[in-house]
């Protein structure tokens, strides 16, 4: 099977039962994406596929051949952190760091969704063409990523600084 991960084409022969997460971690050596619950509840495994965030633990790798997969390893440009990564450092958006790769990929996908005008359950006006990334929107849209250290205030601050026009 052929996969495109962080811009590089990679070949791997894997059992059909292999999840995208296990493919990344165990076969391609990309251990940034984390296995928390392995059932879609925690978001630690979040990666981007063709720019869209998904839970890689619930994805069978075979379904994601020849798609553009981006993991936390693909966010920085060489030694230069992605602005969101720098903001996580600045705002203490983590303690143990285990959920961080998923938080980062999820927030990037989330910012793209809101820029495309995808509403959320807290969006009051479904007909609005632009939706502000305010405090309630940000927290609702990031509810698929848990942080058991409880670093949510720092996480929200980092995402807001990077993607919101107004402080969330």
């Amino acid at each position, binding site marked *: 099977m052929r996969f495109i991960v962080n811009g590089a084409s990679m070949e791997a022969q894997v059992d059909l039962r292999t999840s995208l997460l296990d493919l990344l971690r165990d076969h391609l050596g990309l251990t940034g994406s984390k296995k928390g619950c392995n059932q879609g509840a925690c*978001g630690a495994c*979040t990666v981007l596929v063709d720019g869209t965030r998904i*839970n890689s633990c619930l994805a*069978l790798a075979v379904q994601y051949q020849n798609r553009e997969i981006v993991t936390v390893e693909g966010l920085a440009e060489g030694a230069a952190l992605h602005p969101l990564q720098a903001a996580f450092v600045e705002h203490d958006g983590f303690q143990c760091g285990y959920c961080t790769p998923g938080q980062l990929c999820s927030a990037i996908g989330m910012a793209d969704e809101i820029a495309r005008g995808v*509403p959320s359950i807290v969006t009051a006006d479904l*007909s609005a063409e632009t939706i502000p990334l305010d405090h309630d929107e940000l927290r609702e849209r990031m*509810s698929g990523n848990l942080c058991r250290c409880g670093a949510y205030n720092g996480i929200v601050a980092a995402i807001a600084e990077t993607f919101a026009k107004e402080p969330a």
Partner: protein
Amino acid sequence: MTPFTYARATGPADAIRMGQGDGAKYLGGGTNLVDLMRETIEHPATLVDVTGLSTAIEPLDGGGLRIGAAASNTSLAAHPQVREAYPVLARAILAGASGQIRNMATVGGNILQRTRCTYFYDDAARCNKRAPGAGCDAIDGFNRIHAILGASPACVATHPSDMCVALAALDATVRLDGPEGARELPLAALHRLPGARPDVETELRPGELIVAVDLPALPFAARSTYRKVRDRASYAFALVSVAAALDLEGNIVRDVRLALGGVAHKPWRAEAAEAALRGKPATAENFRAAAEAELSAAVGLRDNAFKIELARRTIVAVLGELAEVQA
């Protein structure tokens, strides 16, 4: 996880050809099926990947909308015509799961997702869905999340979908294709009540595939909404949910659509409540009477009797909200 073979379908005919035979299952986004396979509750011999089928969301001649079964939950909720003409559907979808899961999950897969009854997931427990005839540990167990309407001595599980509750309220039709040809079923008639065979969850025939969902034109659904009551504010299944659309002429209910989630083995179209409301003034008293009519047959178990009053109050609140909007 039990080994399986995998094939990616290029179109409905291809999928149906590969989907024949014992042990074949259609695979959408995998958000439920992969999890159930990992828990060895599902063990298909063959997975037929149908994510390559139609994702189109297109207007129907004469009004309405056709939704390709492979459309993602996110794309359906974000579709401009859904947001404008069927806000109850957009809100129901957005009330469910997380952003990541809505991106993966397909419309067909959402309809065919299985219950989140904890005893169904626990292979040390008795479950008539997993092992027909084994018994049910939920009936006398921790059953706070279980059904209050339409349950049976064999099963008290609920259907977990939010989207389907809105589809039931909107009189959606499911377009099927299969070895015996194409046919249609109303969404509200697709899922079964548990009866003596809770393992048979839908009216689908062997090898049948959901190809699309049709929404009829329903102009008053522009004034519709969905309210979900759950244990936390986001990313939790419904204890009770209400999908409703209200058509008022002055203060008189000309027409109404009402469906409940989290209360039964299927999305529960509240026809008794609808009948009680048509032609009546849109008052809190009449909303309450309609809710009473619908819930009169409800039965509480040890832990879930609170849902009966919760459902009544949520119906009254949602109808009240829609009446305000329209006034």
